[in-house]
């Protein structure tokens, strides 16, 4: 398939690509982004008028929330943690299981999900005076502008050797070396956008629900680590309350993925890794100027 990706010229934060991919059918346009921003906070998109996109993707919390698993209309609890949705413009698949191939596919699914907002997308669009297509394009456009970068990590990568503390630099060496986090968390967005069964083994079959391939049982998409320190709890099921718990979990090497093995990290090395993850917190911007 061949098509043009078109994007507006946005002053992207340090560390991110200048090219912000957007489909030719929905190029970034200021009016559409502004409308999408209003819709993102509009609770009328949920059946009982209690839940907006921003309810679970709170800008004050790195566009995530504090609940271990997403809470929708009627206080219903979903099966998975609300993901941070920063830098999703650069995503290749969407949701923990990658069931949406584009942001346009993704943004309307929570509206239709009975556990989340519980409305037919067409009905939600009518409520706010739009067509389904207008609603979809506006929401996707706004989400494309939610960018996080210019963190101490980005400044270090750009050549500022003072940007990370000695402890964080030691953590970065572990991240790339002994702990091998970089096997999955790489690139400007600190994710390979692939699926791995590295987390706790439970009843949620993850990517398998989409692909039906046995090797995908319990596999979930690698989350970006941007803003990770400010968005507990962690993992797809929100089962780890702190970064220390996450590091401890991976140190034990209990996941099903062949990349996972016991790391034998010392207590100091675990502290260094946690310190590094604090350096992934940077500036979050949204919307167009």
């Amino acid at each position, binding site marked *: 398939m*061949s*098509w*043009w990706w078109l994007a507006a010229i946005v002053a992207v934060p340090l560390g991110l*690509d200048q*090219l912000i991919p957007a489909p030719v059918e929905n190029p970034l346009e200021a009016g559409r982004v502004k409308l999408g921003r209003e819709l993102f906070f509009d609770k009328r998109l949920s059946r009982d008028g209690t839940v907006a996109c921003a309810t679970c993707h709170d800008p004050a919390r790195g566009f995530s929330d504090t609940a271990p698993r997403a809470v929708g209309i009627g206080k219903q609890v979903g099966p998975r943690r609300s993901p941070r949705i920063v830098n999703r413009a650069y995503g290749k698949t969407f949701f923990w299981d990658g069931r949406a191939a584009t942001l346009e596919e993704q943004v309307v699914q929570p509206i239709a999900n009975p556990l989340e907002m519980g409305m037919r997308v067409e009905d939600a669009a009518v409520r706010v005076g739009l067509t389904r297509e207008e609603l979809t394009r506006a929401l996707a456009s706004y989400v494309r502008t939610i960018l996080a970068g210019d963190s101490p990590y980005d400044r270090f990568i*750009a*050549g500022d050797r003072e940007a990370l503390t000695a402890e964080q630099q030691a953590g970065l060496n572990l991240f790339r*070396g002994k702990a091998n986090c*970089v096997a999955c968390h*790489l690139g400007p967005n600190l994710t390979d956008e692939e699926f791995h069964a590295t987390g706790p083994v439970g009843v949620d079959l993850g990517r398998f629900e989409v692909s039906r391939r046995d090797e995908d049982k319990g596999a979930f998409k690698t989350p970006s680590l941007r803003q990770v320190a400010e968005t507990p709890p962690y993992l797809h099921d929100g089962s780890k309350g702190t970064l220390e718990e996450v590091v401890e979990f991976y140190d034990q090497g209990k996941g099903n993925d062949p990349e996972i093995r016991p790391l034998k990290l010392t207590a100091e090395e675990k502290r260094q890794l946690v310190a590094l993850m604090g350096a992934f917190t940077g500036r979050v911007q949204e919307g167009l100027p």
Partner: protein
Amino acid sequence: MLALLPLLLWTGPEVTLLGGPSRDGRVISNVQAPSRDLVLFDFAAKTVKAVAPSSGGEFAYFSIVSADGKRVAYAWKNADGFYELRVDGRTVYRNEEAGFVQPCAWTPDGKFVLTLLFRKDNTSQIAMAPLDGGRPRVLKSLAWVYPKRMDLSADGKWIVYDSLVGGERKLYVLAADGSGERVVGEGVFPLWRGDGKRVVYALGEELWELTVASGERRKLRGGLGRFLPMGMVAGDVLVYGVRAGGTEVYYGNRQPASLRYPGRNSSPGWSVDGKWLAYVSRRGEENFGEEARVIVVREVASTVEREIDPGLALVDAPVWSNDGKRLLVRGADRQGRAGVFVVDVASGKVTPVEREPGSEPGRFRAAWGEGDSIWVQRGAELRNGERALQGVRSFAVRGARLAVLYSTGTLEVDGEERGKSEAKEIVWRGEKLVGGGAYDYSGEREAWTESNARNEIWKWELPQ
């Protein structure tokens, strides 16, 4: 009007394919072999002018010449072990985090160089590097894979590059301001033609042309051998390099190991019983990297061969296990992690023994010890389980016997010092140790690699 035939411009033992011509077609930059000196070669005068001589372990690598032929931008491997971007001897970008840089094209105003940055986490980035010392502007990042070639259209508005997607090299056109991108075809080493509307590129041994707007393709020429486009010059003339000759594995009474893929073979290894020979053979397009290699396993008595594609980005130096069922290789996986891997001969399944992100495969050597134990040399450290030796240059294992050549030149066999050696690598030949490299001995026969590689630089006026 008849199309002109390609014309050989330059060849010789000193010529490499690292460099590119000026737009006016007068000169070409080149890193010379084996000196690694960066020079400019004047096609008309047949003279060589020094640009950046190698010095104290520092040397130039990729280079490009400005449109007027007066300035050269080049990657410089510095004493700290990483590459920096230099122009006319002045450093314009130095950042250990982008340990490898590859300048690809000058902007028309001469203020920026389109540059590929390769980060320590195996991410390559397409960037515009300003020559005033400012921070490069990253247009796009690519995980694990890197373009073999990028080029900027004559008006400076469009970048064409290739990238590996789903096992195929796709061609992309990217707006130089980062505002858009499009997949336009498949191939490698793309270059813009002078009209800015068509791209020429390599597909195997063939040169093709693509009209970007319409997607129309046509083959311009075949039978070019192991070639790579190096640059377009005035008059729509393509300058390209050819790797003539090659490397071949021989064994016994100088019998070539392969007749099907001559000139693409290296690194022989005998099975313990001397009945099987494994070697590495190159496939696919010519490239600067070492990818697209397979392992060939030959039964010597029948000469029947079988190919094993381990699916690694790089594979080298196969060593048979004692039971003849597995091969130990060094290489790198498709995420760029170098290390040591075990390849099951029957199934081709690959199991990593040791991997190191952002490392060089050349840092590793490996050999089977007794039983299933494995000796792994990583840099100057040689390890087998809990046993570790430091300061090692090379080693050789034969059953329970261990020979170690230390970086001081001291040779030690089974823990006893046996004098000094100048060899870089060592191999057991019966009871004796000999200088190694791409050589192996079965107990009856030798096997070795010979190289007669020669590079040529040609030009061809493209048909309209």
